[in-house]
């Protein structure tokens, strides 16, 4: 098996004036290529904090993090944008689409920052949107779509740069059961096609679909 993610003794400390909070208190794990991993744990346990570090949106206070063969924890912050652009697809609980752009342009965004020509990225964005079942909504603004559809746009945007890992932080948290299940099926499909997926969830139904679960309590991995 090929290891995609390896992190050791990750500590994340938030300094707020005099008090400092340790959101992660030394966590270690490995994730293999093609795995579908669920991260579970009570609210405030540090799940999102870990996801942000894995997604290169934030850096650990101490500890090391390898993504494929690159040691992210030793990289300069300025390099991280390229990693986010090429290797990471991130799906948020709150969709995080740009409201004034139509959905095709939303999906094109990562391609624009990787320097792809307008014509090419249009074709690619349309293809990925078709893959998530939104071929007929290209010109719609996010506000004209349902929550489930918006989350599919977000997934399309996460996939469009063919990332190494797909991270999702409670992607069904803002959805009703039905559209939540739709979204989870998309993740299962993607996993079957070979994508490495890490998903944060409160829902034990999700963890049943996953290959394995990582449980975090109070900033530590417990199983």
């Amino acid at each position, binding site marked *: 098996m090929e290891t995609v993610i390896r992190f050791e003794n990750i500590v994340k400390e938030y300094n707020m004036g005099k008090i400092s909070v340790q959101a992660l208190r030394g966590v270690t794990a490995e994730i293999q290529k093609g795995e579908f991993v669920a991260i579970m744990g009570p609210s405030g346990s540090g799940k999102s904090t870990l996801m942000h570090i894995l997604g290169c949106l*934030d850096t650990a206070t101490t500890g090391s993090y390898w993504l494929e063969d690159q040691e992210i924890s030793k990289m300069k912050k300025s390099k991280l944008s390229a990693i986010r652009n090429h290797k990471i697809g*991130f799906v948020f609980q709150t969709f*995080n689409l*740009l409201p*004034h752009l139509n959905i095709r342009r939303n999906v094109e965004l990562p391609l*624009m920052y990787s*320097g792809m020509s307008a014509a090419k990225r249009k074709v690619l964005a349309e293809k990925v949107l078709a893959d998530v079942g939104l071929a007929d909504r290209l010109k719609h603004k996010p506000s004209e779509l349902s929550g489930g559809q918006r989350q599919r746009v977000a997934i399309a945007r996460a996939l469009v740069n063919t990332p190494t890992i797909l991270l999702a932080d409670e992607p069904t948290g803002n959805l009703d059961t039905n559209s939540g299940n739709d979204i989870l099926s998309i993740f299962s499909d993607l996993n079957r096609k070979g994508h490495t997926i890490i998903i944060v969830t409160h829902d034990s139904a999700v963890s049943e679909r996953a290959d394995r679960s990582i449980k975090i309590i109070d900033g530590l991995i417990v199983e």
Partner: protein
Amino acid sequence: MAISLKESIQVGLSDFWSRKIRSLVTVLGIVLGTMSVIVVLAMVNGINQQTLSWMMERGGLAKITVHRNWEYDGDGNERDYFTLKELFHIRELLPEAQFFNPETNDWGRITYKDKFYRNRVQGVVPDYQYIEEWTADRGRFISEFDIDQNNDVIVIGSTIKNELFANNDPIGEFVTFNNRRLKVIGVMKHRYLKNNFNVGNDNSLDYLNRRSFVPISTMVNKITGKDVINSLTLKAKSPEAAPDLADKLENILLNIRHGENIFNIESAQEEAQEIERNAQTFRMVFFLISIISLLVAGIVIINIMLATIQERTREIGIRLAVGARRFDLFIQFLVQTILVTFIGGVIGVATGFSILNIVSRYLEFQLIAYPGMVIAAIAVSVGVGFLSGIIPAIKAANLNPVTALRYE
């Protein structure tokens, strides 16, 4: 490598349109600033041009005139006028003066048969026509010979010719002025200069067409009978030589009047320089005011852009999350600010020109705008955008992705 400039401009433009009102408020200062620069400078240029062309019409910049100094309040021991002999003496002391014309006036009726016209008649020498660059276009002007001989001749203005002679040929006819029979030897060329201020007559020079001219000797010796000459006009060889000539003349006059400051000497060149200096001062003051208002406009723009970035924190977070570099965001917001001020500058220049258009239609006033003014106005707008865009752009570029995404 950042995303292309074209991409940044597109993003900036779509932002501009999706927030039209805010964008317009942002650039109001720039619009007003560039607009008033265009309008005011065009007016200043126009007034300058107007004044200079008037001075050129009135004998050019080499002209020097001497009048009684009305502020002089002496004991009355010195004469406050010239005699003819005195003037011939002064002429000899000033060989560098190209032309030299003493002048004295009398008012009265010019009568021809049963018609008369009341106006001023000037006693002059032949140099008058060269100083004023104006002469008879029918018959001839007064000659040296007329001066020597105290000839009873007169050259009449075009209005007088029309009033007294209608369409008949006046040359060789006799008119009477203050009981003196004078032979008409010429008619002055008609003078015209459009009056751009639209008050009174539409010809600013019409008063000249009502004048007539006789030899100064005839005037002094036969018409008034008083050897009293009140004014003197000279012309230097060039405008540049005029100030020196004026200085020399001033010394001579002080000398013959024993240091009493009885006469005023005006040099057209010095007046023109004075006008230019005033215009320069005005431009400087206006320039400073413009700088201050641009500064204020810049501060307003910084504030609004900072607020915009605050509002768009989440968007910035999203862009960072999908791989935007800090430099991309820096450029995006800088370009956007510059775009906004550029559009403001263009609107300002356009409204400035519309105002000029309307104003000049009603004033019939010549307003002079140079292409350089447009380029400068727009360049300054872009410069203000650049300077006031930097701080907000840095702020946008330095946001932390996670904090930005959490922003509600």
